[in-house]
């Protein structure tokens, strides 16, 4: 199995390209083209001449970085970033913290009911975000809530209530990724530690968590990227409360600009900014940790 493809071994010619043709066609049509189009739109704006009436009154002109400058100067967008930052910090800390604790507990030496609890905690992965938000949304509603009439959807608590939906939905998947990584560790490591007098807690802290570092980094990166783009939960919760504005998260503002107020160019610039931030976060994170966390290609 260690012999990979030898230099020029399969005289394949066009064969691999044919195998890859469907993926490349889809990539071109549904990724490269839309990204290019977004970049193009973000550099243009609509020019209105006269009263803006008649066929030739609205024309598209080159705007340079004007839309980006406008996005940077947009107070509502910054407020959206701040809301998402607070929400994201909460979700990441709770979701990944819980996922790590559950993974370690599943892997503990004397655990019972491991299978049924593992499946239960993983179950929300199969629940659509919209359905999860609806269920919790009703549980938050005064009159229906079994927790009494707490103002779960008030301005002060709505971020926490929304974070709870995301934590509920995402913990199980991350737990399973971490747990699967733990299962791959040879048991002898722990035996050796036990002989040296380490307890379960010591093994978890000094052996298991260091082994999990690369997996924790990967799940963190994917979770950060997903959180930056939060859209479904606040959009679904909005009809139940007036504390979530139509521009609550940056992505919701992109949607509003594009489809409600019809300003495609500013929507394009903002979505390029969101993409840029997501990519910077992912690459930055991976670059910092790559050298000591990942050995393979």
């Amino acid at each position, binding site marked *: 199995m260690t012999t990979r493809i030898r230099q020029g071994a399969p005289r394949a010619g066009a064969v691999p390209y044919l195998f890859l043709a469907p993926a490349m066609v889809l*990539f071109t049509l549904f990724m490269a083209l839309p990204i290019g189009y977004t970049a193009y739109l973000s550099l243009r704006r609509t020019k209105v001449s006269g009263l803006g009436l008649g066929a030739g009154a609205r024309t598209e002109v080159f705007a340079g970085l004007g839309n980006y400058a406008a996005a940077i100067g947009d107070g509502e967008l910054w407020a959206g970033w701040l809301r998402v930052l607070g929400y994201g910090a909460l979700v990441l800390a709770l979701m990944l913290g819980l996922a790590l604790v559950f993974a370690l507990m599943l892997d*503990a030496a004397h655990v019972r009911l491991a299978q049924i609890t593992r499946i*239960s905690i993983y179950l929300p992965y199969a629940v659509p975000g919209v359905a999860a938000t*609806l269920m919790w949304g009703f549980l938050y509603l005064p009159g229906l809530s079994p927790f009494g009439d707490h103002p779960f959807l008030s301005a002060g608590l709505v971020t926490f209530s929304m974070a709870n939906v995301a934590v509920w939905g995402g913990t199980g998947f991350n737990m399973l990724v971490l747990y699967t990584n733990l299962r791959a560790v040879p048991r002898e490591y722990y035996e050796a530690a036990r002989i040296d007098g380490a307890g379960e807690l010591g093994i978890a802290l000094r052996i298991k968590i260091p082994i999990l570092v690369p997996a924790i980094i990967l799940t963190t990166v994917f979770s950060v990227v997903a959180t930056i783009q939060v859209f479904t939960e606040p959009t679904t919760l909005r009809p139940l409360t007036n504390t979530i504005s139509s521009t609550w998260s940056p992505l919701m503002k992109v949607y509003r600009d594009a489809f409600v107020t019809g300003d495609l160019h500013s929507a394009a610039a903002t979505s390029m900014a969101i993409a840029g931030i997501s990519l910077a976060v992912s690459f930055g994170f991976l670059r910092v940790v790559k050298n000591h966390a990942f050995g393979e290609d």
Partner: protein
Amino acid sequence: MATTAPAGTRRPAGIVPTGVLVLGAVYTLFPVSWVVVAATKSKAELFSTPTFAPGTGLLSNLADLFAYRDGVFWLWLLNTVLYAGGGAVLATAVATVSGYALATYAFRGRGLIFNLLVGGILVPPVVLAIPQYLLFSEASLAGTYWSVLLPQILSPYSVYLARIYARAAIPASLLEAGRLDGAGEWRLFHRVSLPMLTPAMVTIFLFQFVAIWNNFLLPFIMLGDDYRFPLTVGLYTLLAAGANQPSLYNLIITGTLLSLVPLVALFLTMQRHWRADLSGGAVKS
């Protein structure tokens, strides 16, 4: 168990993890069990009876839901099956041939193509969804089934999974032997390699099926006509219409429950195929 000191330190170690996991399971099952019970309550019972007391209105709730706008809920369910089923089958096929080619052939541009295809993991869906809508509009395809189906066929993550799995599962020597016997490249893929790739294909299918089933943003942006909605967008519009009318809550709650059933059933029956370890690189070679 003995009560000597070492055993004494061991016993709590079993109670703590079990207790923590049970608490976790209670937390995750709580809203699901609530929606199951709430869907059985009639309009009056929903606001009056204790939270977990079963009601008497399940059948009338179902009848109301299926009668809602001439049974549009059935269409949503059918559409979702179509988007998720069709999309996942095609995504699995594309990812498998791509991953196979990337894993077993040496050719010019391999690294570049791999990076392009897999780099898509990091591209936020929003950057794609809005221009995809505009481009579909140009082609007069916005609002059609195609506009939701086509963009979800290429799954960067699936290509990545297929490649690492194919690299670990298919010995180069086997393909070499096949070539010496005069087998063509398609035959090598179809008859020799594909059976070995089946576990990865099942996993990719399931991941992609769930991803499309749960997707909200793309159909929300693409579709205007509610006869083409999937369940996620349908339920959202139901809530948007009924949030101020508590008399519609029963419909929304029953619809939410029904939207969970197929996926949870698939999830529980295919439990052992959800192998996150394909992604963890823990595939034994």
